[in-house]
């Protein structure tokens, strides 16, 4: 077994990626429209997971209201298209900007909070955004029913209607997202994020502008969620406040944390478990909340580093565990 493993590891990772992409391109061809839509949803949530992964995985900031930005992106597309007639594809950049701007405005005053306090405030902000949409703020968001009748995106004179083309569109953006997130990870900013996550005080002492690093994580992550929201609006053609529900935020959070904090393959695994599986099994769909909860509790107890963790996080958690074992356990 060990030899097979080393052999597999010796293969250039580029081949794995090309292979995965070919599978992703061919997979929908033999499937029906329902399963193509499931694939579309999977790809969309991987993108959402990656957008939150920047905030939670790299910078270590506990954002539990991420769905708000997803909804803001979707509503930006809907509002621009329905009221002003802007073509759907052209609304994408604006949706990113709006979500990123809100990401800045909302997180700027709460950056100094840590851990569970940050969790709670982000939950509150998420709920405020949802309630503002439900209460039909400014009279343009359509209340609890949301907005419907968004145009189909048009590319080179052709309207994109079928699930398979929507899947390919999301896949295109997803490939770009993965590329960008990996470049970010290895950039100066990415290293700063991880430094902030490991030890904020030490990072500051080393001359990292921690406020700027954290803000940028929120802005980039929020903007990216906005793009995912636009992609959603383009396929479903209806947006509703349900997109900003707390459950959505928890699903995204679970994708990142249970998949493996700080690792991109972890986001894939997390999405399969949190989104694709419940989509495929009816029983699991009815009990999805319980399934989510059970996964959260058992993973925290049995495998806190996630299913496919980054090497750095795994070593960290193991070291912390050994330390805790060496010293008598203490609650605080």
């Amino acid at each position: 077994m060990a030899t097979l493993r080393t052999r597999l590891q010796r293969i250039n990772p580029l081949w794995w990626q090309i292979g995965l992409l070919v599978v992703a391109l061919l997979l929908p061809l033999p499937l029906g429209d329902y399963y193509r839509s499931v694939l579309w949803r999977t790809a969309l949530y991987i993108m959402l997971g990656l957008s939150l992964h920047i905030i939670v995985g790299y910078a270590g900031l506990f954002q539990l209201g991420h769905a708000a930005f997803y909804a803001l992106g979707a509503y930006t597309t809907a509002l621009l298209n329905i009221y002003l007639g802007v073509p759907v594809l052209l609304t994408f950049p604006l949706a990113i900007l709006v979500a990123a701007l809100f990401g800045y405005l909302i997180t700027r005053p709460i950056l100094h909070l840590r851990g569970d306090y940050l969790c709670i405030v982000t939950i509150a902000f998420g709920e405020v955004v949802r309630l503002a949409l439900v209460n039909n703020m400014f009279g343009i968001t359509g209340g609890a029913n949301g907005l419907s009748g968004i145009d189909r995106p048009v590319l080179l004179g052709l309207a994109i209607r079928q699930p398979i083309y929507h899947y390919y569109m999301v896949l295109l953006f997803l490939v770009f997202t993965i590329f960008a997130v990996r470049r970010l990870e290895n950039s100066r900013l990415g290293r700063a994020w991880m430094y902030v996550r490991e030890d904020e005080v030490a990072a500051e002492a080393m001359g990292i502008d921690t406020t700027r690093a954290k803000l940028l994580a929120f802005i980039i992550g929020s903007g990216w969620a906005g793009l995912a929201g636009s992609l959603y609006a383009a396929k479903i053609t209806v947006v509703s406040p349900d997109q900003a529900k707390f459950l959505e935020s928890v699903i995204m959070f679970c994708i990142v944390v249970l998949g493996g904090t700080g690792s991109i393959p972890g986001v894939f695994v997390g999405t399969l478990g949190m989104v694709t599986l419940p989509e495929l099994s009816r029983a699991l769909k009815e009990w999805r909340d319980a399934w989510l909860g059970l996964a959260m509790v058992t993973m925290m107890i049995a495998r806190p580093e996630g299913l496919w963790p980054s090497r750095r996080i795994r070593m960290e958690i193991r070291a912390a565990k050994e330390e805790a074992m060496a010293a008598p356990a203490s609650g605080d």
Partner: protein
Amino acid sequence: MQFAQQLTQQIVNGITIGAFYALVALGYTMVYGVLKLINFAHGDLFMWGAYLGLTGVSAALVLLGGTTPWVILPVVVLVMVTVALAGVLVERVAYRPLRSAGRLAPVISALGVAFILESLARNVYGASWKTYPPGLTPSGGLILPGNVRVSVMQIVVLVVSFLLMAGLYLFVHRTRIGTAMRAVSIDHDISRLMGIDVDRIIMIVFLIGPGLGGVAGMIVALYYGSFDFTLGWVFGLKAFIAAILGGIGNIPGAMLGGMILGIVETLGAGYISPQWKDVIAYAILILILIFRPTGLLGERVAEKL
């Protein structure tokens, strides 16, 4: 005159709701005190109190074959015990293995328990609104000077809540176990050196907090008449806001926070718009965490938030 009468009426209603928030907030604040954990499952234990109370009352009425308000008393005690035991079970299964795993893992575990409890309630009892059988709550009321109405139910709610809270306050400040509880909330290791059984104290906290929460769930459901499975999340989050507002870990703070939140929310619903009632509560949370994270009565904590 009209204005003053309306204002007083709103405040009376606000105090009643505030008493509920305070009862639930006590559970959050006590657990946070000893474990530094936001027990997200608390709101759903509270909701289970409402559902179990409904089952208990319905079963008792079928057995006795009639309607008598007195069945409520044994059912309340039963609900209190059951929810308290459920609280201990949750702590044993989902929190104790994570005692030394940092601060995030237990929070995620608590969220997980909340989702399990909510999903269970929805699948067992269904997603529709539930109503307690009629004739259980006292009707009628008093008219105070200035034409302010106070219903008998409101008086019962207030008396019961204040008795429970006063009892808890005396328990925490006048008994040996209460003293041990306060010691544990300051430092686990030193408490252990002083001969305190920390695990036992934490277990007692998880008996009292969810026990009070379960009773509150049943009274809230009786007061409003109907409820559904989202009760735990909405009410739980607000009660948590009350706990933060008063200063988390501080028992009188939870009572004060609950009252203030209840009054502000009712006034906001009356004078601004009922639709924005929840937003007011969240805005209070956001403002308090930005400007005074220790809450109104919270002591200066040395650790950075």
